[in-house]
Structures are given as C-alpha cells and as structure tokens.
C-alpha cells in the first residue's frame, strides 16, 4: 500500500483537519480568515515543507474519522494524548501544551480542590479536562458537559455556570464579555501535551513530523505562535 508521506509529497498538498470553532486554537478572524494557534502551526508546517495547505473543516467528533478514512492527512486540532486514544491513532511528539485550570467567579472564595466539593463545574464534553475531572471520583465534583467551548463560555457568561474547567486564556475572556461576572483561574488541573494526530502505521510521516516539531520548538517559532494566542509561554521543559 502507498505511503502517506509519498502521497502528500506527490500531491504537493497537505490536508489538515482542524476545528475552526475552538478558540483560541482554531477560529476565524473578522475577515473570515482561519486563525488561531493550531491554524498558524499548520500554516508553518505547510510552508516549511513547501506544500499547499488545505484545511479540512471538522467538528470535534469527526476529527479522528477524517484521518482514519483518509479524508485528511493529519490532525492539528488541540488533540491531547491519552493511552486510550493512542490505541486508535498515532500521536507525534507534543508540539504545544495546554494549561488547564478550574476558573471561577472572582467573588467566590475558592482556593483549592476541597473548596470545589459538591460544586458544579462546566466543561467541554470529551476534552481531557472532562476526562480528568470525571476520574476525580473522591473529590466529589459535579460536572456539567457542554458540546463545545463556546456553549460552555456562554453558560458562564449568562450565569448558568459559576465554575468552568478549561484553559486559562478562556477563563480570562469571560470578564471581557460580561463585566458583571469576571472569572479568574482558581485551581490548576494539569498541563496537557498537545500532539499532531495521524493514522496508524505511517512511520516515515511520523518521523518527519517529529523532526519538524523538534526543530521548531528549539527555534522558538512554535512558542511564538503559542504566546500570540494563549498569552503565555510554553512550559520550559518543552522548549528544550
């Protein structure tokens, strides 16, 4: 069977699955151009490899089937690595990391996990935040799962949720949208590695992607992209 890397190079085009509805990683700007950290990462990759870039629009649920069935070549769409997922697709080395926090209303006196006992925390369904919090059985948390970040944020803005588990960037955004309900990061959950996803058994493509990631982490380009959209640096050990 054909090798995916050869196919890509022959076609001079790479098809990257990205969800454009998960800011700040994938979104559109006011000129309707795709933008976000994942989008710029993808653009950087295509440029470096001298390929034409095609975004395959996906929703959260169809990112994986898109590469499994060959409708897209790779996924750059805030995929965090878990062992279960690694059974289905292959992950490269991490190209970025996401700091997840539990954010809450500024006015609420919450400092650490025990204060969250019995509280309802909003998450985006199926994200790694969701998985991690769901597994914290002993902490006695109530979890409300929304289909995507936007709905979750809307819940926070309108008052349906007082706590949300997501990236710190998004937590800070809420106060901008509704000054009456400013949110702040309360408790750090974990830092998740984000990796590029590709279908199983493509060692040559995997190798080339890993090399590219290593180079660009070292030269600071990936860090710059990350900082531009998330407001913070990548973790030190990742930057090498």
């Amino acid at each position: 069977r054909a090798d995916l890397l050869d196919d890509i190079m022959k076609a001079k085009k790479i098809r990257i699955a990205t969800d454009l509805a998960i800011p700040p990683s994938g979104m559109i700007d006011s000129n309707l151009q795709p933008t976000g950290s994942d989008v710029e990462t993808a653009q950087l990759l295509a440029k470096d490899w001298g390929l034409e870039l095609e975004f395959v629009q996906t929703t959260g649920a169809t990112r994986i089937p898109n590469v499994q069935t060959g409708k897209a070549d790779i996924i750059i769409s805030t995929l965090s690595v878990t062992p279960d997922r690694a059974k289905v697709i292959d992950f490269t080395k991490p190209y970025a990391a996401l700091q997840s926090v539990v954010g809450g209303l500024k006015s609420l006196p919450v400092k650490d996990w025990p204060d969250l006992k019995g509280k309802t925390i909003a998450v985006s369904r199926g994200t790694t935040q969701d998985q991690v919090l769901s597994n914290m059985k002993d902490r006695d948390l109530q979890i409300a799962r929304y289909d995507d970040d936007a709905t979750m944020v809307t819940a926070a803005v309108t008052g349906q949720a007082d706590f949300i588990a997501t990236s710190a960037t998004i937590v800070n955004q809420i106060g901008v949208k509704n000054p009456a309900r400013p949110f702040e990061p309360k408790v750090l959950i974990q830092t998740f590695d984000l990796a590029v996803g590709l279908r199983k058994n493509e060692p040559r493509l995997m190798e080339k992607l890993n090399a590219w990631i290593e180079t660009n982490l070292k030269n600071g380009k990936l860090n710059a992209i990350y900082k531009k959209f998330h407001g913070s640096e990548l973790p030190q050990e990742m930057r090498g």
Partner: protein
Amino acid sequence: MGGHLNGNHLLFLGQGMLWTFGLSVIALGGGGIAGFIVALCRVSPSRWLRIASGAYVQLIQGMPLLVIMFLAYFGLAAIGVQVSPLAAVGASLTVYVSAYLGEIWRGCIRSVPRPQWEAAEGLALSRAQRMRMVILPQAVRIATPPTVGFMVQIIKNTSLASVVGFVELTRAGQIINNSLFEPFLIYSIIALVYFVLCFPISRLSHRLERRGGAARETLTPA
C-alpha cells in the same frame, strides 16, 4: 477571539444560507424521486416489495439523520468507498427524505377512495394506467400540503451536514459565535434567517391545505 459582528460575518452567514438552500434542493429533488418509488413499493401488489419497503421506512425513520450522514460519509470510506462530502450528504438526505415522503405519499395514494380504484378497474384500465390517470392526479392534490410542510423540516435538518464539513447556516453561526461569543445576537439572527426561509413555505402549505381540503371533499361524491 472577541471582536464585533461585521459585514464579513454576515457575508459568511449568507454563504451558509446558500448551502442550506442548495442542500434543501438536493434533499427534495433526490428524496422526492426516491420517495415516489418507495411510495409505489409500499402500495405494490407484491407482498415482498411491500414488506421490504416497509422495513426500509421503519429502519430509516428510527435513525437520527446525523448518524445516517456520519455512516454515509465515514462508514463508506471505512469499507473502502471514498465519497465526496456532497455525494455523502446528498445520498443521506435522499435516503432520509425518501423514507418520510414515501410514507406520506403512500397515505395519500391510499386515501383516494377505494371506489375510485374499482371504477378505474371496471373500465378495463391496466394497473399502470389506473395509477397514472386516475389515482396519482387525485393523490397529488392531497399530498401537496403535507409535502410542502415536510420541506420546512428538511430545510432545518440540513444543518446536520456540518458533520461532514459543510459550513451551512447553523455551522456558520456556530463558527462565528465561537470567535465572537455573542450567542444571543447570533442565534437570533440564525433563527430569523431560518424563519424567513421557512415561513413562506409554511404559509403556502396552509393555503394548499385549505384548498386541498375542499378538493378532498369532492373526492367522495354523495
């Protein structure tokens, strides 16, 4: 992230609306033809055709359209048949619509009073002639209102095509909302656009229904 709704966004919604419109046309065109065949099978003299088409209708009506689309696009690819998004969505909508329209139309064909079938039979018309000259022209008058009413559902259901990457009206709204975080504004606009697309059709269906009602009465003389 952030920013305000501008003309570009509205343009984006406009493009989404065009897709919604286009997908609806495909759904009704393809689904209409397939539904007609399903309806004919459902009233066929062959028992097996009736049972098979009945099972088809039950199966399709028991599944959410989203799942049908998913399986058509990714499922076919998984067994090695690569289909374009448009083909997958077109096929799914056709299948889905055919099950519903087939059932609606079967009812309409059936509701042409039995004596009409017999009168046609008594005049030595063949089965095809009876269908074409006597039954269908009468069934069409009864069928128009529910068919038009169903169109409204389809227009709204095309939103599910986002699962295979179509950015139609609802998905366009979602994407914009997820960068602007203005759910009320954006969803109200979407609601309004759908309303503008659907309301005239609903009204039309009502008007037809009122006329169809009169037509139906004349179907059963004395």
